[in-house]
């Protein structure tokens, strides 16, 4: 004990410890939930492509990419408040609101379209910011605050579109929902998409690029800011976060604003895909509930503090990949909700293994 390592030699020893296999294993164990989700996705999507009558093709990929985009964005939106230990029940409604807004704004001259897109994203973020203000300054629990504000968003959407309708710039719709080559062709870029250097990437579906852009250019940098870190800290132990002098209010506002922004982006792309605005209440609540399911399947804890938006995207991919299989295996449409429900239950009950394994029952209450 007396000859324990002295302060001078210690740093050398510490940094000499190999950062290789041990840390990798630690990383894997800490992300077990995410790995499970990735495995599920590979399983279901592999099954789908294996049994697809025409096999894997870019056309199928483009179709799938369009089908996953909105839910993936909503799953990212839901993740941020969940990391705080909260929940945002308004994401579906904000999506619908921006969807209706886009059906009014995203048309006309290129400048008008650009402005309209900016307005749509801004509207989503603004609504999220208001949610944040209600939670932070009104001190109302997120779940109930967003339940109420979701009703308001739905009402505003109905004002904007009492009946489905409106239109979206047709070029934009075409360009955003197809391969990169179609995008280039539509807007006359890269020799109408025929440039030789462009060919290796020409097949990539634009929705996948959009999703990657939101994940890598918005979420990943945000996670590494002090505000982003604070969101994790609050979800883990809010009192300790306060004691450490972290910007609690700013982080909560940022979390809900970001949720609104992602949800708004989801609404915008839904409008671009469907070319209409539709204030559909059941659709909004389905998206909200599926976003929560995606977050959980991705391995983010509903108690907050662990997980991430990219994991939730994987969760969304799992949900969608399951329904792709219905088309392949001719599951009668009537049985689809049942199978979806059973898979969801099975997936979340996997987490129950922890409860059955715990040898000290007090650990269950953490």
């Amino acid at each position, binding site marked *: 004990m007396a000859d324990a390592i002295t302060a001078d030699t210690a740093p050398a020893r510490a940094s000499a410890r190999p950062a290789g296999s041990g840390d990798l294993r630690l990383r894997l164990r800490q992300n077990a939930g995410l790995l499970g989700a990735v495995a599920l996705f590979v399983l279901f999507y592999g099954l789908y492509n294996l049994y697809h009558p025409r096999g894997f093709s870019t056309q199928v990929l483009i179709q799938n990419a369009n089908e996953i985009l909105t839910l993936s964005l909503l799953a990212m939106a839901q993740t941020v408040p969940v990391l705080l230990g909260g929940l945002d029940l308004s994401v579906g409604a904000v999506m619908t609101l921006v969807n209706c807004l886009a059906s009014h704004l995203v048309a006309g001259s290129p400048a008008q379209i650009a402005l309209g897109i900016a307005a749509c994203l801004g509207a989503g973020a603004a609504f999220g910011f208001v949610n944040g203000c209600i939670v932070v300054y009104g001190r109302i629990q997120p779940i109930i605050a967003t339940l*109420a504000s979701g009703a308001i968003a739905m*009402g505003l959407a109905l004002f904007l579109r009492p009946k489905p309708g409106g239109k979206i710039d047709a070029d934009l719709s075409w360009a955003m929902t197809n391969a990169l080559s179609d995008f280039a062709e539509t807007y006359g870029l890269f020799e109408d998409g025929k440039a030789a250097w462009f060919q290796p990437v020409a097949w990539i579906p634009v929705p996948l690029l959009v999703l990657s852009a939101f994940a890598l250019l918005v979420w990943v940098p945000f996670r590494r800011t002090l505000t982003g870190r604070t969101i994790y800290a609050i979800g883990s132990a809010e009192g300790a976060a306060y004691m450490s002098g972290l910007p609690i209010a700013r982080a909560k506002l940022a979390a809900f604003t970001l949720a609104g922004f992602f949800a708004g982006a989801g609404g915008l792309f839904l409008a671009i895909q469907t070319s209409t605005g539709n204030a559909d209440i059941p659709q909004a609540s389905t998206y909200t509930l599926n976003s929560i399911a995606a977050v959980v399947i991705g391995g983010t804890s509903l108690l907050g503090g662990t997980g991430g938006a990219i994991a939730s995207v994987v969760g969304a991919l799992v949900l969608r990949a399951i329904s792709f299989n219905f088309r392949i295996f001719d599951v*009668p449409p009537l049985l689809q909700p049942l199978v979806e429900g059973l898979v969801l239950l099975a997936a979340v009950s996997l987490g*129950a293994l922890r409860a059955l394994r715990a040898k000290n029952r007090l650990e269950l209450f953490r």
Partner: protein
Amino acid sequence: MNALTVQIRPDTKPILIAAGFILVILGVGTIYTLATQGAATLLSPAYLIQQLQTGAFLGLVAAGMMLVILIGHIDLSVAWTLTAAAMTATAVGGPWAIPAGLGVGLAVGLLNGIGVAYLRVPSMIFTLGVNAVLRGLMVAQTGGFAPQTAATDAMRFIGAERVSGVPVALVVWVAVSLAIGVILTRTAFGRSLYAIGNREAAAYLSGIPTRRVTCLAFVLCSLFAALAGVMLAGYSTKAFQGMGDAYVLPAIAAVVIGGTHILGGRGRYMGTVVGVILIVLLNSVLSIMQMPEAGRQVIYGGVIIVMLLVYGRGERATS
């Protein structure tokens, strides 16, 4: 608990504020009807009883929801529990219709309880999954169409009929309410709900059978939702797809407006009753005013936020 304090407890304040707000709704609605129809329709006993009768279905769902919210959980499966119970009851028919409907509730409640209490899956997500399964089962069974079978006479009796002017549905709601009031304040089960909602580990180490209590809360919640479904089918003479969808969020809202803390541990049953009445009257005044759906949604959300803001202000002033 009641005997211990004399002054107005903090959890009574929301109830008084909500009750005050009910008077405001009635006042505004009456001014509107006096101006447009020249009659105080809202204040006639017949009208109020009619409103309470429709409120009974929401009241039953909210009563069960409150038990679950008190222990810090939530039940999102009530929508299809209600619908499945109604569909099963009408499909079975005859004297076994009502027991069959309630049996569905019992089974769903047990499933939820086992998932949440024993497997420790977060209730938010487990009940969501159970809701999807129930919807799937019902859609598969009915072929996606409204079932052709009709409610039995017994179901119509408890859902729609009146005995000497008093709707039977209202009587059922009052009876259930009295029972829950007593259970929450005067039984070990009720006290255990509050203890678990405050600090589950401490409740467990106090020798409270936390898993059994949690399970029972979910069973009661589903049973009340099933009862509401059977009665609603009686009221509208048949069961139909999505008949429960309109009850989940209003039930949660009623519980919270009544002062029950959404994270559990605090709240009085009286508040839930007041919350249900508030929501029912707000809906009916808005429909008298022929408010479009858009306006209703905005007002609905606004009322919840404003009421909770007012409660919060009151709490801070006293603490």
